[in-house]
């Protein structure tokens, strides 16, 4: 089972509707890249060269169709003033949100996409990957959409209350997060990466369809339009359940939707005519806890349900490939795409 096209040729052809040797396959290898290089996540998350080397090493091992630079969902919130805690070998978490009280809105920092917080870490990682592997594979950088950043700037439970009690504050905050998100898109594109939005907090497991329409859709739409204007294919990933919001996710203008807990047949029926679908082998149950055989079986089921989706299908993990996933399971996922 050898590929005839390089990941870059394949994805380039796929996205422009030209023939491909097989469907693309993109396990979301994020912090797992640190494990491939054998470095703790904290070191990886704070050192751009290390993050870049880890991602290139992971790509050499798995030959996945897209490099996905990412370590935590709080990178933009951090640049805006939220303080994080860095566990030794796990993704960073919020320690103190910058807007703990409504009066703190003024404390939010306007960001410089090239310099604020740890954004330079991501940019250096992108440049390293482009330098080392850019002729073989596209390099993307996954970072949080405005709603998720707002949740981490305000505290998720406080933003959730604001949606009902203080929508004006929520909108003011989201507008700041939109501006920051667009600044990041520009810096990522300038460094040679494809900006990809991820929005775990805007999941249908957390907020209603009505809340998605009011507080998520307009801001995400604006950032994706900026990404398209920068010459990139706008992509959006939402974790958890998305059955109630998938049509609104397609309304954001995303050309590809990466989805997690939803039946691919349902997704294909609802939005397959408008967007390329990407998913959704279960990360913990199957990739982490399964065997190459169970991974292969579930990947084949995904392909059976969605390989014929009108705007295309990319075989992928539903969400981040867990850090401790056995490498043979990731290789099995890649093989499933090759055998299709």
């Amino acid at each position, binding site marked *: 089972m050898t590929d005839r096209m390089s990941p870059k040729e394949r994805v380039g052809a796929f996205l422009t509707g030209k023939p491909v040797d097989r469907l693309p396959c993109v396990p979301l290898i994020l912090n797992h890249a640190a494990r491939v290089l054998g470095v703790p996540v904290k070191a990886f998350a704070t050192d751009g060269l290390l993050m870049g080397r880890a991602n290139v090493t992971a790509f050499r091992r798995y030959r996945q169709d897209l490099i996905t630079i990412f370590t935590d969902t709080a990178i933009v919130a951090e640049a805006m003033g939220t303080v994080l805690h860095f566990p030794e070998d*796990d993704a960073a*978490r919020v320690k103190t949100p910058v807007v703990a009280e409504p009066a703190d809105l003024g404390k939010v920092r306007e960001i410089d996409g090239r310099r604020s917080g740890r954004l330079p870490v991501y940019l250096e990682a992108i440049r390293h990957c482009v330098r080392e592997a850019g002729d073989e594979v596209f390099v993307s950088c996954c970072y949080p959409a405005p709603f998720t950043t707002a949740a981490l700037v305000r505290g998720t*439970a406080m933003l*959730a*209350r604001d*949606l*009902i*009690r203080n929508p004006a504050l929520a909108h003011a905050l989201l507008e700041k997060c939109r501006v920051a998100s667009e600044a990041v898109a520009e810096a990522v594109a300038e460094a040679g990466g494809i900006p990809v939005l991820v929005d775990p907090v805007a999941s249908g*497991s*957390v*907020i*209603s369809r009505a*809340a998605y329409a009011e507080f998520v859709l307009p801001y995400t739409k604006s950032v994706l339009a900026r990404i398209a204007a920068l010459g990139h294919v706008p992509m959006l990933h939402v974790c958890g359940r998305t059955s*109630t919001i998938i049509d609104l996710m397609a309304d954001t203008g995303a050309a590809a939707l990466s989805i997690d807990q939803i039946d691919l047949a349902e997704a294909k029926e609802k939005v397959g005519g408008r967007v390329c679908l990407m998913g959704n082998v279960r990360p*913990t*149950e199957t990739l*982490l*806890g399964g065997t190459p055989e169970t991974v292969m079986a579930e990947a084949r089921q995904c392909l059976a349900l969605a390989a014929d989706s009108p705007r295309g299908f990319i075989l992928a993990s539903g969400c981040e490939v*867990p850090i*401790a996933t056995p490498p043979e399971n990731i290789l099995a996922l890649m093989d499933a795409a090759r055998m299709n």
Partner: protein
Amino acid sequence: MRPKEPAARRDEILAGLAAAVDAMDEEGAVRWAKEAIAAGLDAYEAITQGLAKGMQVVSNKYDTGVYFVPEILLCADAMYAAIDVLRPHLRVQGRGSRVPVIIGVIEGDIHDIGKNIVRLMLDAAGFPVHDLGNDVAVSAFVDKAREVGEGIVAVSTLMSTTMPGMGRLVEALKAAGLRDAFKVMIGGGPLSATFAEKIGADAYGANAMEAVRLATEWEKVTT
């Protein structure tokens, strides 16, 4: 206006408390709690027959996709505001003294929506709850169990990667000589009654109502 019959007045106040919780109406919940005290209602009854009934409706609405996290948080705010009014009037003896529950999300997992809903329902049912939060080390559960002495340990996770921590918790309670003093219930997405049995926990609770039912049942056995 003729004063209402006591039973009708009692029902009106309990329904008011339940409706205020469901309506996310913090001020209304506080107002009804004050009326409960003024009318001489038992504070414990106001919580279990009023506020808890409201939280049951809220919990059902969450399970059926009517309410989401923002709504749950505001309903909980209303409930706790009313509990703050009622708490000083709780009689320490008798029905108000229930077995303590230690609750937390196992180490490695920060998903605490489910745990928080169970916690709310236990609070509403009048159980003294020690909430250890999320990403809780096995040793922190054991330390708290040692401090509390006896009762119930409720532990959850949404991720299959962190499930083994629950088995370690049961073992650690045994090693500390505390296993017989505590009933252990587990809950969360990837879990099952089979898994509970496998690791030696006492039960699996499929949802918040089930958790309260188990705790109430165990209490009857132990007291």
